C-alpha cells in the first residue's frame, strides 16, 4: 500500500456548505486532492453551529460541531471575505492554480459575484466546475428554495417509503444530500478522466432532486407499463417473501430477514425449528407466502423476539438466509465488520479530542489508503499557508488581515450562545420526549477514545 493517491496534485476550491457539497469534496480529499474550503467572516457554514458538543456556545463553538467535522476532515481552509474586490482577487488567483471548483449556492449566486463558469474559465481554461443545487441551474423550478429534507420527497422517494396504507415518509436523514455528494464525486472523476485525455475542462450541473430520481426507476417504469403508482408497503418487497423487520430481545432491538426463494425459506424455517413450514401449503410457494405474509410474520416474530438481534443475524446467515441486525448510531461504531473494514477513522481533532469519523467514500482499494491525512480545519486555519503558496509575502498577508479580508474568527450577527439556545434543547428533554434513545456518559471509554484529548486550541 502506497501513500500515493490518485488525486495527488489535484487542487479543489471548495465553496460548498452543509451536507451534499462537503460530502463530494471530502471524497475527493480522501482520494488525495488538496481541497481548500472557503468560509466568510459573515457567513460560516451553518453546520458549524448545528450540534455543539459539551458546549453552551461560549468560547469557539464553531470548532466543536461534529456535523461539520465528519464531512470536512482532510481539507484545508481559508476564511475570506469575497464581498470585497480584494477577496475576489485572492480567490481568482487561487482558481488560476486549481483544477476543480465546487459550489452549492443557490443558482445565480456565483454569476452574480462574477464567478460563474465562464468567468472562472477565463482565469483557468481547463477548469472543471461542479454546482450542486436543489433543482439544477435552469428550468422553471431553478429558483425554488431547497433544503435536503425536502428533496428526498421531491425525488419521488417518499412516495414509495412508508408503512402499508400510511402516509409518505421521509427517511431519517436528508437522503439526497449524501447521495448527491457521492454522485458529485463520481461526476468530477468522470470530468477529470476526460481532461486527462483531452486537456478540456467542463461545467457540471447537478440537481439533487434529479440525482436521486433513478432510485425510483422501477416505479417510473411500473407507471409507464401498467399505469400504476407503486404503493407503500413497509419493508416488504415484490421480489421476496417473507421480507420484513422483526422484533428481537431487548428494548427497541430489531433484525431484518429476507427470503428470495423457496430454498432460502426452507433454510430459515429449519433454523427456526419449524422445518415443517416448507411443506405447509400456506407457505410452500412464494405466492402462498405473499398471501399469508402477516401470519408468517407473527410466527417469525415469536422466534426472533426470544433472541438477540446479532444472534438472529448470525444464525440465519449460517444457514444462507439474508438477515441483518438493525444497528443504531452507537452500534455502527462497535460493529466488528465495520471495524475490520475501517468504516471509521479516529482523527485527532483540535480542540475536541480523538473522535471516530465515518468515511464518505465506501470503496476500498489495495493500492492506496483513503483515511484522512489531517483533521477538519479550524476557521481560517490555512489562510497564511495558502496565500504564501500563491506568492503573497508577509506584508501583503498582514495587510489582508488588517483589512478584514482574511480572518480566523467569524463576525456573527448573533452571539454563539443565542444560536445554541435557539437551536437545541438540553438533550435530557429529547430523551424524555423519546427523540433520543439514551445518553451514555461514558461513551468515550466505551469507544476507547478517552483520556487522549488533543491539545486545546491556542
Amino acid at each position, binding site marked *: 500500500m502506497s501513500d500515493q493517491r490518485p488525486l495527488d496534485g489535484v487542487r479543489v476550491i471548495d465553496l460548498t456548505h452543509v451536507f451534499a457539497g462537503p460530502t463530494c469534496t471530502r471524497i475527493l480529499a480522501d482520494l488525495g486532492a488538496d481541497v481548500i474550503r472557503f468560509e466568510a467572516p459573515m457567513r460560516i457554514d451553518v453546520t458549524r453551529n448545528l450540534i455543539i458538543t459539551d458546549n453552551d456556545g461560549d468560547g469557539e463553538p464553531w470548532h466543536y460541531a461534529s456535523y461539520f467535522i465528519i464531512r470536512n476532515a482532510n481539507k484545508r481552509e481559508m476564511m475570506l471575505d469575497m464581498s470585497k474586490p480584494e477577496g475576489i482577487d485572492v480567490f481568482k488567483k487561487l482558481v488560476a492554480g486549481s483544477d476543480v471548483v465546487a459550489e452549492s449556492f443557490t443558482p445565480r449566486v456565483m454569476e452574480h459575484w462574477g464567478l460563474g463558469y465562464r468567468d472562472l474559465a477565463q482565469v483557468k481554461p481547463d477548469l472543471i466546475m461542479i454546482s450542486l443545487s436543489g433543482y439544477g441551474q435552469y428550468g422553471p423550478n431553478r429558483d425554488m428554495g431547497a433544503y435536503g*429534507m*425536502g428533496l428526498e420527497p421531491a425525488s419521488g422517494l417518499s412516495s414509495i417509503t412508508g*408503512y402499508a396504507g400510511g402516509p409518505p415518509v421521509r427517511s431519517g436523514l436528508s437522503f439526497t444530500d449524501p447521495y448527491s455528494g457521492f454522485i458529485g464525486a463520481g461526476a468530477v472523476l468522470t470530468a477529470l478522466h476526460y481532461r486527462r485525455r483531452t486537456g478540456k475542462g467542463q461545467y457540471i450541473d447537478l440537481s439533487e432532486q434529479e440525482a436521486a430520481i433513478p432510485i425510483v426507476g*422501477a416505479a417510473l417504469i411500473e*407507471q409507464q407499463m401498467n399505469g400504476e*403508482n407503486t404503493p407503500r408497503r413497509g419493508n416488504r418487497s*415484490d421480489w421476496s417473501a417473507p421480507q420484513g423487520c422483526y422484533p428481537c430481545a431487548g428494548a427497541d432491538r430489531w433484525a431484518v430477514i429476507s427470503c428470495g426463494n423457496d430454498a432460502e425459506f426452507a433454510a430459515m424455517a429449519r433454523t427456526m425449528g419449524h422445518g415443517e413450514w416448507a411443506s405447509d401449503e400456506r407457505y410452500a410457494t412464494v405466492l402462498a407466502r405473499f398471501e399469508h405474509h402477516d401470519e408468517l410474520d407473527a410466527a417469525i416474530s415469536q422466534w426472533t423476539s426470544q433472541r438477540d438481534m446479532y444472534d438472529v443475524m448470525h444464525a440465519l446467515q449460517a444457514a444462507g438466509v439474508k438477515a441483518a441486525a438493525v444497528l443504531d448510531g452507537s452500534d455502527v461504531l462497535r460493529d466488528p465488520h465495520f471495524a475490520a473494514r475501517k468504516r471509521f477513522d479516529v482523527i485527532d481533532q483540535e480542540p475536541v479530542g480523538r473522535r471516530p469519523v465515518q468515511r464518505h467514500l465506501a470503496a476500498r482499494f489495495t493500492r492506496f489508503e483513503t483515511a484522512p491525512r489531517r483533521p477538519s480545519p479550524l476557521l481560517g486555519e490555512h489562510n497564511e499557508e495558502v496565500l504564501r503558496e500563491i506568492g503573497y509575502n508577509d506584508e501583503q498577508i498582514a495587510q489582508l488581515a488588517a483589512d478584514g479580508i482574511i480572518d480566523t474568527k467569524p463576525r456573527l450577527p448573533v452571539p454563539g450562545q443565542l444560536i445554541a439556545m435557539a437551536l437545541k434543547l438540553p438533550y435530557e428533554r429529547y430523551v424524555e420526549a423519546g427523540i433520543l434513545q439514551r445518553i451514555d456518559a461514558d461513551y468515550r471509554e466505551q469507544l476507547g477514545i478517552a483520556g487522549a484529548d488533543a491539545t486545546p486550541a491556542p
Partner: protein
Amino acid sequence: MPERALTDVRVVDISEGIAGPYATKLLADAGASVTKVEPPGGDFARRLGPFPGHTPDPERSGLFLLLNTSKRSVTLDVSVASGQVVLKKMLANADVFVTSERPSTLRAWGLSYDGLRMEFPELVFAQVTPFGATGPYAEYAGNSLTAMAMSSIMYNTGEPEREPLSTGGEPGAYLGGVQLWAGILAALANRARNGGGDHVDVAMCDAAAAADEYNAAMYAFQGAVRRRYYSRHIFGYPQDIVECADGHVVMIPGAGGFPTPLNKDTISPMALLLEDVDLNAHPLFMSPGERMIRWREFDELARPYLSTHGADEIVQTAQALRMPFAYVPYASDLLDDAHLAEREFFAGVEHPHAGTLKLPVAPFKMSETPLAPLSAAPALGEANAEVLSQLGYSQDELGVLSDRGVI
C-alpha cells in the same frame, strides 16, 4: 455527435441485479464500452420486473431495461472452465472487470482478484456485494434491506412505536452502485497517475452507512443515541411531510420562517402562510425547541390552513415567502413534471420488445460530454457472435460453445 467522457474505457461486467449494473450503466452512458456477460439464463434482474401486464418476460423487465442501457450482452457460463477461458480472453482487452459475486464464488471459479492480477496487472477489478470482500461478514447474503439495516439510517426511519422502516426503492443497492462507480473512476485515475490495476471493494452496507447524516457522530461526539421519531430531523420542527387538502407537502419553514429574537416584531412568513398574524407571538412560534417537543400542538395550529388548501397553492405561497417547502410527487407526477421536461431529464428510449420508455437521462449534466442512454438495453446474448468473433473464435467454435450451453 458530441464527444463522450469515457470512450477509451472498456468494461467487462458479470454483475447482476442493481448495484453493479447501475455502476456500469453510468460508465456506459458516459461512453465506456460495456460488455455485459450474463449467465445463460440471464441477469436475475430480467426476472424481477415490473413487467407489462405483470406478465414475466426476460426481455421486458422494467428494472433490467432501466439499468442496462448502452451495453451489449453476451451469454457465457463463467462457472465452467470453458466459459472462464472465454472470459479471460475478454479481460485481456478490458480496463475494468465488474462482479457482484461473493469472494468464495469467485475463488471457486478461479476468478478471484489475487489470481487475475497476475495475469492482468493493469485491470481494475471492481466488486460490489452486500457485505464486501473482506471482514467477518464477507460471505453473508444480503440485499438493499440488509444494507439499510446495518447503516443506522433504518433505525432512525419510521414511527417510534412501530418497526424501523427501510427507505423505498432498493436504496442500499443504488448506494452500492454509485460508490462502486466512483471507486472504479478513482482506480482508473490511480492507474493513470501511479500505475497498476486495483481491487475496488464495495460493500452495500458500507455504502449505506457512509450516507449517515449524524447518527454515529452524535454518539462519537456526545454519547447520544438517536432513535426514529417520525423520521424527523432533530434540529427543529416542522421539517416533515404533512397532509394537505389534496395530498401531502413538505413543510420546511427554513432559517427565516419563524420569528427570531432579532426580528420578533416583524410578522413571520409562517404566520403569513397560515393566515393568522396572531400566531407570531405564540410560544410555539418563538421557541424551536418547544416546537420539537410539542409538535402535536403545533400541528393543530397549522391544520386549519393545510386542510383547506392544495399542495400547489401551499408550496407556491411558501416559496414566495422564501420558505423552502417542497412537493411530494409520485412516479406519475415526475413523468409529467414541467421542470424535469424542460431539463430534458427523461429521454424516450425505444426497445424492440418493450416499446418506447421514458428513462432518466443522467443524474447530472456535463457541458462538454453528455451522459445519456446511447441505446436500449440489449436482448439476452444479442452480441454473442460479434464479441466472440472479435476474440478470434470461428463459427464452428461458436457452435460448439453454444451446444455445450456455455453461450
